Every structure is written in C-alpha cells, then in structure tokens.
C-alpha cells in the first residue's frame, strides 16, 4: 500500500511535471506575443517568471552535461584531439561571454525566425556558455586521473568501451563533476540577468523571466520590485539546492574514490524520500531495467583497446592532421583578419589595449583589497569548525547571488554623493566574485591538520609569526585557486559593472568592459569582436604568466601530504 513516503514522492513528481509544462507552454508562440504581453512588475507574475528562468538554466545544464560527456571524453581519449581541444577549452574559459550575447542572438534568431524559440535559444546558449567550460575541464581531468589499477581491472575483465565509460569513467568523475555543476549553476545567475533582456542596436527582445523583471525594475527605479526579485531568487536557489543538488551530493557520496570511511556522509531528505518510497521504486524499476540493458549492450564486440606506450605515431596521419589544423587556423585567421581590418584602425586597437590596462589596474587593486580583507577572515573562520559550518553555506549562497542585483543601490548612492564613477563603480566588479577567495581560504584553513595547529600552540607560535609560518603557507594553494576564479570572473563582470544605470542615470567608467558594453549598445560588431579579443588576450596572458606559475609554486612547496 501507499506509505507516507509515496505520497511525498508523488507530490514531488507531479510538481515537477506541472513546472515543466507551465514553463514551456509559450515556446512556440510568435515573437509578437512578447510585445502583446510585456513583462510587468506585478509580483504575482514572479512565480511564472522564476519557473521560466529556472527551466532555461536547467536546459542549459543538460546541454552542458552533453557537451561535457562528448567534448571532454574526446579530449581525454584521443591524443591527437587532446592537443587541440584542451587549449581551445582553456581559451573559451577566458573569453568574456557577456560580450558575445549580442552576436549569438542574431544567429539564433535566424534559426527560428519570428518565433520566441530563437530568442530562447540565444538566452539558453548564453547560460550554457557560462556553465559548460569548467564542467568539461573537471571531467577531462578526472578521466585523465582514473587510477591505473581500475583501468587495468576493466581491461582485464574486457569491458567494452561503452561499459567502461559508464561503469568506470563517469562514476569516478561524478563527485568532482557535481561540485562543478553547483558552481556553474551559481555562476550562471549572473548571466540570466544579462541574457533575458537582450538588446542589439535598436532591437530589444525581452523574454519573460526573473532577469528581465530585474532589468525592468532598474529601468523604472523600482526598489521594491528589486526586493521582490531578490526574494524570488533566494527561494529558487533554496528549492533547487534542496531538490536537486543536495540529493545529488548525497547520492554521489558512493563514488568517492577514497577507500577509507570519511566523516559524516552528506544527507538529503529528498533522496531519503525517493529511496524509501515503494511507488518510486516501482515506477523506476522499468527505467532501471532499460538502463541496465543499454549499459550491457554490446555496441561493439571488441573490448576497449589497450594502448601501448608510446603509441607509435604514424608519420603520415600526424602530418595530415597537422595540415588540417593549420588549414583551419589559417581560414580562421583570414576570417578574423578580414572582419577586423574592414573597419578597424590601429588607433582602435591602441584604444582597446589602453582601456584593457585600465580595467587590469582595477582588477589588480580589487583582488589585493579583497585578499587583505578575506584571507584573515577566512583563516579565522576555517580554524573554528563550528563557525565554518555556519559561514560556508552563506558564502556559497552569496557567490550564487547575482551581484548585478545590487548595482541599482550602488548607482543611486554614487549619484547621490556625486562620486567619481571611475573609482566607485569598480567594487561592483568584484562583488560577486570575492566569495571564491573567502570559501577557498576557509576550506584551506579547515584542512590544516590538527597536529600542526597543536604543534604551533605547543611552541607558543603566535601573532605575526603564526600567520607567516603556519597560516599563510597552509592556505596559499587554496587562496590561489580562489583568486584565479575571482579575477577571471571580475573581467567578465567588468562588462556589466563598468556601465551601470538606474533609471535615467547612467554611469560609465573608463575601461575595456565599458567599451564592449557601449559597442554592444551601438551594434558595432567589429568593435565588439575587437574588445572581446583584447580582453581574452589579457586574461590568457595573466593566467599564463602570473597565476599558473604561482599555483604550481604553491602546490609544490606547501602541499600538506
């Protein structure tokens, strides 16, 4: 008979069904529909907007997973593909996606002319680009580090490539992948706000959603509406954390590779409900059986091939491959070159580079300031476990919180006190990204072995000596990881943070971000591309010459094992 678990489970599933049908009802309507029923600030609409926004994010997440499983697998399994795909991913990670939205929207509108679907595609694509790269990277790295003995065991028992992928590779990569999915989901809120109200030149397309609601609220200087939007987001984040990520994390605990029993395993009430319900059990049994058959299907008779080290490179094939890659690169170069040269003068390039330096200065100063503030706090919190347990989820929420929601408040303050936007708009860039520094430092401080701390206390190492000899070295590798994320995110954020508006008040700071944003408003594709290219260049250069060496150094010198 029905247990109470069944009832709860049924409610959860029905709720999900309703949510999907509600949210996808409008997809096939013509664009004109959007104009007939414009986004309104009535808070009664917010549940629907929230549902639509969340659906977009979930679809983008599904696409990101698909991308991860194919792209990263190809990169990890084929050496030839790896040589091209990994650097490509590294660059893609550094490209400021916000600048791209205007370009992609034109493309996707052309795919489904006159329908809402095209705009939806563009928005989903923008969200996808904010989620996919780090997931793919994490999956690629996991695939590269599957322990040799597991690989050998799977070869010894002659698993087919298909079976090996699902039985060995994916499970091994799962915990890391889920962690990255959570980061991606948090990060993509930032883009939701920017991608639902897309304006290119004179056309503005507004898709109903939380993002466009916020954009409208800013336009109308409606602080109350901004408050409603923040509340809605809070609720949405709470819901998907409880319904999706907590259960996933609790479920994925079994995929941890460490063999020793760790601390308390993560819990999730939703997962408990689903596991205990007999109804769910009966409903999913056929699915599980189908999955089992798919898993066991012998797509090919042969077992996964054994690579001999080194696989002898066939000179001819390598040569052909080199030719193809070179040809592709040449075509791309020609395309870009023609595109840029058509309209761009050397002085344009010089302007973009100079503006890039301005933004760089801001980011360096901001990261330094944020470090001075958050490293001591992070260490203080991390060395007190009961405080850390409270602070960590809060910091994670703050990281998920799209900082652009706070812009209106900042802008009105700047206007009110007549401050210099070149200086006072800057903090907005790091508003959303500084939390990465905080929670990485907290994690690092928590990882300091109790013995080391006791030894420090025993020798009465205190004050500045304690910081210099114990705390800072121990958290440095973690800090660098956080700072890399924070600085990358700040570049991206500069596109929305260097130009901020509140109703008719519009503040502009001198910088590359503002340059890209203004060219987007003007619909000048050549200069958008120029701005993006220069920004990518800055990010890649700084990563290669500063962050990566620093990380390697910290890793080598201060690793605690």
């Amino acid at each position: 008979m029905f247990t109470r678990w069944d009832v709860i489970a049924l409610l959860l599933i029905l709720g999900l069904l309703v949510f999907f049908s509600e949210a996808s009802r409008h997809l096939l309507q013509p664009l004109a529909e959007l104009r007939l029923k414009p986004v309104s600030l009535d808070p009664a609409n917010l549940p629907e907007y929230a549902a639509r926004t969340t659906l977009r994010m979930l679809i983008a997440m599904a696409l990101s997973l698909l991308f991860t499983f194919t792209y990263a697998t190809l990169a990890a399994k084929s050496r030839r593909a790896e040589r091209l795909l990994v650097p490509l991913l590294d660059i893609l990670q550094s490209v400021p996606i916000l600048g791209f939205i205007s370009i992609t929207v034109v493309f996707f509108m052309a795919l489904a002319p006159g329908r809402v679907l095209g705009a939806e595609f563009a928005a989903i694509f923008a969200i996808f680009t904010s989620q996919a790269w780090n997931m793919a990277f994490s999956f690629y790295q996991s695939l590269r580090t599957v322990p040799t003995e597991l690989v050998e065991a799977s070869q010894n028992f002659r698993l087919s490539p298909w079976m090996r992928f699902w039985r060995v590779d994916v499970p091994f990569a799962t915990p890391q992948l889920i962690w990255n999915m959570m980061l991606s989901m948090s990060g993509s809120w930032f883009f939701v706000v920017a991608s639902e109200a897309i304006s290119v030149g004179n056309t503005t397309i507004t898709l109903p959603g939380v993002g466009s609601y916020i954009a409208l609220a800013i336009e109308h200087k409606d602080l109350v509406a901004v408050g409603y939007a923040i509340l809605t987001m809070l609720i949405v984040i709470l819901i998907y954390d409880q319904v999706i990520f907590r259960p996933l994390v609790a479920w994925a605990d079994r995929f941890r590779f460490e063999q020793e029993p760790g601390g308390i395993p993560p819990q999730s009430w939703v997962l408990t409900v689903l596991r205990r319900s007999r109804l769910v059990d009966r409903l999913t049994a056929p699915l599980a059986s189908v999955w089992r058959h798919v898993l066991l299907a012998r797509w090919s008779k042969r077992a996964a091939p054994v690579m001999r080290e080194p696989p002898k490179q066939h000179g001819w094939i390598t040569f052909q491959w080199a030719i193809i890659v070179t040809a592709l690169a040449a075509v791309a170069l020609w395309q870009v070159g023609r595109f840029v040269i058509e309209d761009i003068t050397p002085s344009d390039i010089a302007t973009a580079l100079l503006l890039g330096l301005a933004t760089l200065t801001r980011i360096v100063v901001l990261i330094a300031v944020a470090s001075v503030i958050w490293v001591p706090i992070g260490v203080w919190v991390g060395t007190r476990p009961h405080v850390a347990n409270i602070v960590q989820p809060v910091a994670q929420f703050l990281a998920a919180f799209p900082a652009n929601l706070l812009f209106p408040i900042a802008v009105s303050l700047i206007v009110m006190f007549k401050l210099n936007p070149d200086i006072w708009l800057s903090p907005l860039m790091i508003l959303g990204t500084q939390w990465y520094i905080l929670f990485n430092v907290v994690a690092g401080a928590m990882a300091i072995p109790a013995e080391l701390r006791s030894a420090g206390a025993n020798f009465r190492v205190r004050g500045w000596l304690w910081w210099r000899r114990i705390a800072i070295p121990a958290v440095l590798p973690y800090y660098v990881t956080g700072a890399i994320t924070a600085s990358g995110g700040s570049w991206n954020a500069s596109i929305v943070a260097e130009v901020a508006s509140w109703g008719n008040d519009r503040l502009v700071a001198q910088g590359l971000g503002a340059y890209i944003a203004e060219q987007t408003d003007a619909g000048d594709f050549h200069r958008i591309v120029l701005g993006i290219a220069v920004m990518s260049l800055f990010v890649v250069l700084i990563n290669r010459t500063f962050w990566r060496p620093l990380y390697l150094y910290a890793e080598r010198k201060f690793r605690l094992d």
Partner: protein
Amino acid sequence: MDTALLDIHALRQTFPRADGGELLVLDGIDLQLTRGQIVGLLGRTGSGKSTLLRSIAGLMPPAGGSITYLGQPVVAPAPGIAMVFQSFALFPWLTVLENVQLGLEALGLPEAEIRKRALAGIDLIGLDGYESAYPRELSGGMRQRVGFARALVVHPNILLMDEPFSALDVLTAETLRTDFLELWGDGKLPIKGVVLVTHNIEEAVLMCDRILLFASNPGRIIREIAVELKQPRNRLDPPFRDLVEKIYVAMTSRTPTPPRIGTTTPGPAATSIDTILPRVSANLLSGLLEALAAEPFNGKADLPVLADELHMEGDDLFPVSDALQMMHLVEVEGGDIRLTDVGKQFVEADTDDRKRIFQRQLLSTVPLAAHIRRVLQERSHHGAPKSRFFDELEDHMSTEDAEETLRSVTAWARYAEAFAYDDDTQTFSLENPT
C-alpha cells in the same frame, strides 16, 4: 595433462625513454605454465616481474618474442586470463555483488546466469552476508577476497596474482594464503594454473610449485627452482628453511648492482655514474650496520635470520645491503652479510667521525656523488642546477629511476655533508647553511 596453458618465448618488453629511445625492461623471457601448477615470479622491485604479469594479462603487447595462450598469441586481454591486484582494484561505487558481477556482465551472459555464478563465487570465497556492502566498509582482507571472487567467477584458465597479499597485515595474509591453498588443493577453484608475483621469499616457497628468480636491468630470469615439498607446507620444516636459505644465497650471489648490457665485470666495481641507486635513507644504513655489529650477530649474520630479527622482508633488506656493499661497508656472500673493517670503524666512531667515514666511502665508491661534487668544485660559484645531472641520468634510465637515484644520492650527500641541495631553486651547491 601436460599441455602447456601458456607458452612464453624470448619475450622482450621496453618502456619509452625521455629522449625518445627505449629502455629494455624484460629480455629473453622463456616460461611455460602447465596445468595444475602455481608458478612464482620472485625478484626485487624493478626486476620486471610485474611487467611480465601485465604482458600475460594482455595489458602490454610484447615488444619482441611471443606469448601464446592455448595456441593463440596474446596481444590484448584474453578471455580466460583473470587477475588479482595488489591494491585490490575494486570499484568503490559498486557493491561487493556488483564488483563480482562486473566480469560476467562484460562476457554478455544472461542475467540469471550472472547472478547464479556471482553468488556461487561469493559463497566459495567466504563472502556470504557481505553482498550489499561497499568496498570501503570492508577490511583489507575482505576486500582482497572480493578481488579473488571477481577473478574466479569468470572461470579463468589462468589466474594471475600481482603480490595479492602484500598490502595486508601478516595475520590476514596468512589466513588468505591458507584458504586459497586449501581450495586449490581440493580442486574447488575453476582455474587450471596460477602465476604469482611476489617479493616475499617465504610466500613463494609456501605456495609455488616452481619459482623463477628474476634479476634486474634488464629484467631476466636467472634461475628456476622446483619446490617439491608436499602441501600443506610448514614454515618451520628444515627442508623448507633450507630452500629459503638457498634462494637467499641465489639472490645475493649475483653482483649487487647488476651489470648493464655490455659491461660484464662482476663485483661492486661495476658501479658507474648511471647505476640506479637504491632508495635507502642514511639512517637505515647506519641502523643496519649497528644491528649487525651488536649481539647476537657480532659483525656477521645469515641474511634470512637478520631479516627475521629486524622484521623485514627480503625486498626491504636487499636495497639496504646493496647500498652498504656498494660503499664497501659490508660484504655479502652466500646468503651471509659481514661488516668490513671500514664498517666496523664506522660503527665505533662518534657522529662527526661517522660523517667523515661516510663521506670518504660515498665519494670513492659512488661515481655519481663524486661526479656531482667535481662539477660543483669546478664551477666558480660552486652551484649547478639539478636538471644538469637529471638530463644526464635520463639518457640511461627511466624518468622515475633518474628521479629516485638523484634523491638517494642527495640524501646520502646531505648526511655526509658532501654537498647541499636547495629544493626551492632546484640547485646543488657546495655551501652549507652556516
């Protein structure tokens, strides 16, 4: 009954070297496995015995020669050859039952058959009641039982075992060995032959019908020993002890640092700049010298007895005795180890004198140490990057060996105060911090 299950002829295996060349790790291996036999591969770390096992498993296609299993060449994992791993290699996300079923699923058997055989295997190996447990919930011994069950349920003709007991504590290992031998003796195991890799001499004598002794650089078989004792064997039996002693003698009577191809000069003089140095700390070296000088040995000991006394297995003891012999601090012959006069001086000296003696021996007998010191002296600022020596070594050995060798020589030189090394800047220098 005499048909060979496995026939290996003139097998060669190579690893790629950093400079693009190849490093020979196995050479001229001949081996036949007949039905009903357990063959042991015994040798020191780095003698290529695990490489041979992986070649048989089809995880490394031969670089030369042939491996024939039931008339078919082995170039990829063959059905009917299953492996038990040193570190268990269980999938932590699968339960005991799912782990055991994995090999059967890959065979594409019907589900009912998979379940039947998996449960039978679990029953046979004594894992009843643990079916739904995850590996992390089990002790090491139980985990290895899962490893055995997983290999046995596919009904392999040949079972390969890669030091299956070496990650377990002494007592658990012994129980598992006894259980295995009992099932094997009673004919309850669905296997026809076993290849066991081990570095534990007693384990080899306890379990195997034939033992192949390996020497390193390149890995090759130097001796074959038939074990004709009846099962179950008793470790305290005089014939058992004799055989153990005989293998100790065989494993130490060779040159301590085996010659490379081309150089056949026997004895410690064979060491050169590119000799792979064993990874042994200076503490362990002086510790062994002291133990050897003290009661009950008084400067001379039987290797197996010394190993027992120090609770070391042969594999742990050999690198230490090798290093000491290289530096002329001990002599090893016929399974015996004896302090030399220099060795005696060392034991009797105080800390500073010990360092002086050690430095003299190090620089006169370890060419790499002398070489590094000479280079440092010749340079005006008395410093040289690590990479300078690393690249030199890499031309003659694998990257890992080069790394290990440099680490060993650094550790010894630090104790001897022969030269210093700064890990931050990765440079050697003659200066010591003052």
